[in-house]
C-alpha cells in the first residue's frame, strides 16, 4: 500500500479540542493535518440553521470554562470570538409560576433569594465562597496532565503538594469540610445550606447537567464545584455571538494560521499501526495518510473500539474501554419561534436562560425513569433563548429557543429512539407550554436530537456529550481508564486529545491543550521515527 501523503501529526476529528491541539502543535513547527468527517468543524460546538433565517447552537450552547490559555493564547478575540453576557445567569421556574432569578453578581442574587428566605440569602454568598476555595485550588489542575500514580514524577508531587497547601490556607477544619464535599450527593450539600427548594434544585441542576446521575447520587456535589469554576474568579457563563460555530471557526482559523491543514468532509475509517506503533490513518474513501503521531479527538470508545486495530490492544485494555461509562442521558430540542414567548405570570422580559426543575424530587424522579431505561415522563429542562442577547441568530422580533432535556437514556429498554423522537419533542413542548403559555403556537420549526441523533450528528458515542460520564470514578487519574490518563495510549504515537481525557468534557479546550504539550514532551523520542 502506498502512502499518499504524510504529516508529522494527524488529528482525527475537528472538534474544539482537536483544533486547539492542532494550533499548539503547528506553532511548535510540526506539520499538522486535521481530518473532520462533517462539512464543518466543531463537533458538538456548532451553529446550524434550523429553519430559514433561524440559527442556533444545536449542541453545546454556553461557554464558561474555556481556558484563558486558549482564549488569549490563540487570540480568539481577533478571530471573530465575541462573548455575550447572560443575565440573569439563570431563572429557576417553580411549579406555581414562581421564578427565582440568579445573577452572576451574588449580591444581586441575594436580594432575589431574600424574597424566599432571609436565611438562604445570607448563606448564598458564603456558600459560593466556600466552594470557591475548592474551585480555585483545582483550577491549575485543569491544564496539567494527571500524575503517574505508581511512580509520580517529583514535580507532579510538588505541584499537588502546593495545591494542597493553598487549599489548607482556609484552615484545618474548613479544609476537612471541603474534602467532605466531593463524595456527597448534591441533594445533601444543598439541603445543608439552603431551605428554598427552588434554589436547591437549581444548584443541583448545575451539578447534574449532562450526567446520568440524580441529586441523590453520591459524588454529584463535585459537579457543582466544577460548574462553579466558571465564576470562582470573576468569570461567568456566556453566549458566543453567532453561536458556538463561531468559536469553532475561530479555532480552525487559528490552526490554519499556525500552519495546520484542516480538511473537512473527510472521515477517518482506521488508525493504522503495526507492532504497537502508530503509522497513520486511512480515510473512508480509502486514502492513506502517514503520520508519526496521531491524536484522536474522538471519544475513547470510538477511538479504541472502532478506529484502532484490536490486535494492537490487550484484552484487558479493551475490556476497560468497554466498561467506560458512556451511556448518554440527554436530548436536545431546538425551536424556531415566530415571536417572543412570555413566562406565565411574569411581568419581566423573557430571560436568556431559564430552567424547569422545580424541586430536587422532580429531578430525582426524572432520573428514576431513566435508570430503568425510559425517557423521563417529566424531564427537567435547561433552556436558553440566545436571541435575547444575540439578535444575529433570527429575524427581528423572532427567536430561537434551545433546550437540554434530561433524562433521555441512549439505551432504551423498550422501543427505539427513531420511533420515540417525536414523542420526546411533544413532551418537551407540552412542558414548555405549561410555563410559557402560547409557545406552541409560535413554533415555526422544531429539531429534536435524541441521544442516537447526537451520536450520528456529532460523533458522540452513545450520545454522551462529555465523551463519558464525569463521575469521580472516571476523572483525573482514572480518565478514560486507569493507567492511561496522560493522553498516551497503548499504541506508541497515538494520543487521546478530546473530552475522554482529563479534564473531561465541556467546552474547555484543556484536553487538547494538555495533549499537545504531552506530544511535544514526547516529540524528541517520537519525532525521529
Amino acid at each position: 500500500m502506498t502512502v499518499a501523503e504524510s504529516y508529522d501529526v494527524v488529528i482525527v476529528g475537528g472538534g474544539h479540542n482537536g483544533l486547539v491541539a492542532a494550533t499548539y502543535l503547528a506553532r511548535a513547527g510540526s506539520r499538522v493535518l486535521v481530518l473532520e468527517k462533517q462539512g464543518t468543524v466543531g463537533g458538538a460546538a456548532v451553529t446550524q440553521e434550523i429553519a430559514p433565517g433561524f440559527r442556533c447552537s444545536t449542541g453545546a450552547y454556553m461557554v464558561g470554562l474555556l481556558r484563558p490559555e486558549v482564549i488569549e493564547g490563540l487570540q480568539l478575540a481577533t478571530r471573530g470570538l465575541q462573548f455575550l453576557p447572560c443575565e440573569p445567569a439563570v431563572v429557576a421556574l417553580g411549579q406555581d409560576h414562581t421564578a427565582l432569578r440568579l445573577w452572576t453578581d451574588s449580591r444581586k442574587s441575594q436580594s432575589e433569594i431574600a424574597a424566599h428566605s432571609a436565611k438562604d440569602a445570607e448563606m448564598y454568598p458564603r456558600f459560593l465562597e466556600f466552594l470557591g476555595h475548592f474551585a480555585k485550588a483545582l483550577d491549575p489542575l485543569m491544564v496539567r496532565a494527571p500524575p503517574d500514580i505508581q511512580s509520580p514524577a517529583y514535580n507532579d508531587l510538588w505541584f499537588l503538594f502546593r495545591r494542597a497547601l493553598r487549599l489548607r490556607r482556609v484552615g484545618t477544619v474548613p479544609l476537612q469540610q471541603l474534602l467532605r464535599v466531593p463524595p456527597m450527593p448534591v441533594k445533601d450539600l444543598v439541603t445543608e445550606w439552603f431551605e428554598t427548594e427552588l434554589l436547591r434544585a437549581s444548584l443541583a441542576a448545575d451539578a447534574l447537567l449532562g450526567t446520568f446521575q440524580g441529586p441523590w447520587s453520591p459524588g454529584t456535589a463535585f459537579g457543582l464545584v466544577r460548574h462553579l469554576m466558571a465564576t470562582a474568579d470573576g468569570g461567568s457563563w456566556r453566549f458566543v455571538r453567532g453561536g458556538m460555530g463561531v468559536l469553532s471557526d475561530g479555532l480552525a482559523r487559528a490552526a490554519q494560521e499556525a500552519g495546520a491543514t484542516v480538511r473537512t468532509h473527510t472521515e477517518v475509517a482506521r488508525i493504522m499501526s503495526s507492532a504497537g506503533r502508530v503509522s497513520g490513518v486511512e480515510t473512508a474513501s480509502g486514502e492513506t495518510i502517514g503520520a508519526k503521531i496521531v491524536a484522536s479527538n474522538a471519544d475513547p470508545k470510538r477511538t479504541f473500539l472502532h478506529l484502532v486495530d484490536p490486535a494492537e490492544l490487550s484484552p484487558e485494555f479493551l475490556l476497560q474501554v468497554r466498561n467506560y461509562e458512556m451511556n448518554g442521558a440527554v436530548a436536545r430540542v431546538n425551536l424556531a419561534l415566530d415571536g417572543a414567548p412570555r413566562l406565565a405570570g411574569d411581568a419581566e422580559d423573557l430571560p436568556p436562560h431559564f430552567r424547569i426543575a422545580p424541586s430536587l424530587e422532580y429531578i430525582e424522579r426524572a432520573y428514576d425513569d431513566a435508570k430503568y431505561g425510559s425517557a423521563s415522563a417529566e424531564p427537567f429542562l435547561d433552556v436558553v433563548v440566545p436571541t435575547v442577547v444575540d439578535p444575529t441568530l433570527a429575524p427581528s422580533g423572532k427567536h430561537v429557543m434551545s433546550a437540554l432535556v434530561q433524562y433521555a437514556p441512549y439505551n432504551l429498554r423498550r422501543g427505539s429512539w427513531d420511533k420515540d423522537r417525536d414523542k420526546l419533542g411533544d413532551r418537551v413542548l407540552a412542558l414548555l407550554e405549561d410555563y410559557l403559555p402560547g409557545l406552541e403556537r409560535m413554533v415555526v420549526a422544531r429539531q429534536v436530537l435524541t441521544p442516537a441523533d447526537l451520536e450520528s450528528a456529532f460523533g458522540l458515542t452513545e450520545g454522551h456529550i462529555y465523551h463519558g460520564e464525569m463521575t469521580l470514578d472516571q476523572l483525573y487519574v482514572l480518565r478514560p481508564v486507569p493507567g492511561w490518563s496522560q493522553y498516551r495510549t497503548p499504541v506508541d504515537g497515538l494520543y487521546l486529545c478530546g473530552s475522554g481525557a482529563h479534564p473531561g468534557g465541556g467546552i474547555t479546550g484543556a484536553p487538547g491543550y494538555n495533549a499537545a504539550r504531552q506530544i511535544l514532551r514526547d516529540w524528541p523520542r517520537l519525532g525521529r521515527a
Partner: protein
Amino acid sequence: MTAAYLARARKKVVVLERRYVLGGAAVTEEVYPGFKFTVCSYVCSLMRPQIIRDLDLPSHGFEVIPQESSFTPLPDGRYLFHRGDEEDAFQAIAKFSRRDAEAYPRFGRLMAKMAKFIVPTLSMTPPNIGSMRISELRKLLALNKQRKELTEDELYTFARLMTMSAADYLDEWFETDVLKAGLCASGIIGTLLGPRSPGTAYVLMHHYMGEIDGAYRSWGYVRGGMGMVSESIARAARKFGAEIRVNADVRRILVRNGRAIGVELASGETLHAKIVASSADPKRTFLKFLERSELPPDFVRGIENFKIEGSSGKVNLALKEAPSFSALPGNGPQLQGAISIGPSVDYIEKAYDDAKYGNYSHRPYVDMCVPSTLDPTLAPPGKHIMSCFVQYAPYTLRKGTWEERREEFGETVIDTIEEYIPNIRKIILHKQVLSPWDLEQVFGLTGGNIFHGELTPDQLLFLRPIAGWAQYRTPIKGLYLCGSGAHPGGGVMGAPGMNAAREILRDWAMLKV
C-alpha cells in the same frame, strides 16, 4: 469494649446501661416464651481478632458457628444456592452462567485482597488532615506505607471501589442478575443508598473484611444469639474489675468549665468521673446529653448535619416448624445460612426508590436467617426463630408515623415472604416488628440507623463523626466518643471501643486527665 480495655489498664470503670439487658443492638431477648430472639444484629464476622484475643472472649462464652451457605430463591422457582466451598459455588453459579462461575472465585480473591488492605486501618486512629504536627504526619506516613502494599492495578481498583456503585462494578464482572443482586445487597445493608448509588461498591468490599478463623467474608451465628457477644465482652470487663450497671439511664453528661465531670441518671443520681466515654451515637451524645451552649456552634451544626437516617426494619418470627421454600422445599441446608429475598438488582433499586420518597419499600429486600437450625438453644425442639432484616424502611415517613404504620409494614414483609414460603402465615407463632422508630426507642439508635450514622465517605475516617473531631475526643475535655459514630464506624467490630480506649489511655499518660 472501652470499659474492658480501660479496666485491663487498671482504671476504675463503671458502665451505665439504660436497658435491663446489655449489648445495645447486639442482644438476645426472650421476646416470646421459649424463643430467644436475636433481636437486631444477627450475624457476626467483623469482630476484630485482636479483640477476641486481648479479652480472651472464647473463655467468656463467645463462640461463632460459621454461616456458610447463601440461598436466594427466585419468583420463577429457580434459585441460587451455594455452600462455602469453591467447588460448590462453581456448580451453583454455572447453572446460570459458566462465565460467572469462573469469575466468582477471582472476584472473591480480589475483594479479600482489597479488604486486607483496609483491615489495619480499622485499628488506627484517623489522622487529622491538614495538621502539620509530627504525630499526625506519622499517621499519614503509616497510611502511605499501607498503600505501598498494593500494586498499581490494585490502587486503581481501590479508587474505583470507593467511587463506583455496586451495580456498575459488578456489571463488569458478572452477567447473572441474581448473583449480582446478592452481592449488591451487601453494599446497601443499613444504608440509605441503592445498588446504583456510587460508593456502594466500597461497602460491598467492606463486608469482605469479615474473618472468622482467618477465612474472609465468612459470617457466623454466635451461639446463644448476638447477646453472647455483648455478654462475653461484659464478662471480660468485669474480670478486669469494671463495674457494669443495668437499668441506669444516663440523662445528662455533667460539664464544668469545659470539662466533663460525670453524669446524671434519670433517677437523679449523679456519678463523678475524670473521664466520660459515650458509646451512644453522636446525635444522642451531643444533642441530648449536653446543652447546645456547652458546645461550639460549628460543632453543633456539624452534628446536626451528620446523616443518621435509619433505613432498616426488623421482623423477628417464632415459628412452629421449619419454613419451607417453594423453590427448594424442606428443612435442608438451604435454611442454615444466609437467605435473601432479592431476586434482581432492579428489585433492590426499586425498593430503594420507595425509601427516597419517604415510604417503606412496597416490595422490600429481606435478609433472613434461621439460626435455630444450627443453634438449638434458641428455640424449643422442632420449632424455630426466623430473623428478617428488611431494607428499606426510612426513619422519616412522609405519611403517618411508624407507630401507626408498623403493623402494615410487618404485613408487607410477610406478604413478600409469602411469595416464597406460601405457608408462612400458618406457621407463625409470634411476630415482632421493629421499625426504625422502634430501633431508636428501644435500642437507643438515633434515627434507627444501625451504624450510628451513614457509612459514606463524607462521614468516614477523618470525617467521622465530623471534620476536626475524628479522634474520639470531643470539644469537652474528658469526654470521648467510643461507639460506632466514631472510626471505623458500624458493624459489630469492637474497633471504635478499642481505639477510643487507646486514645483515652494516651491522654491519661500525657496528664491531660
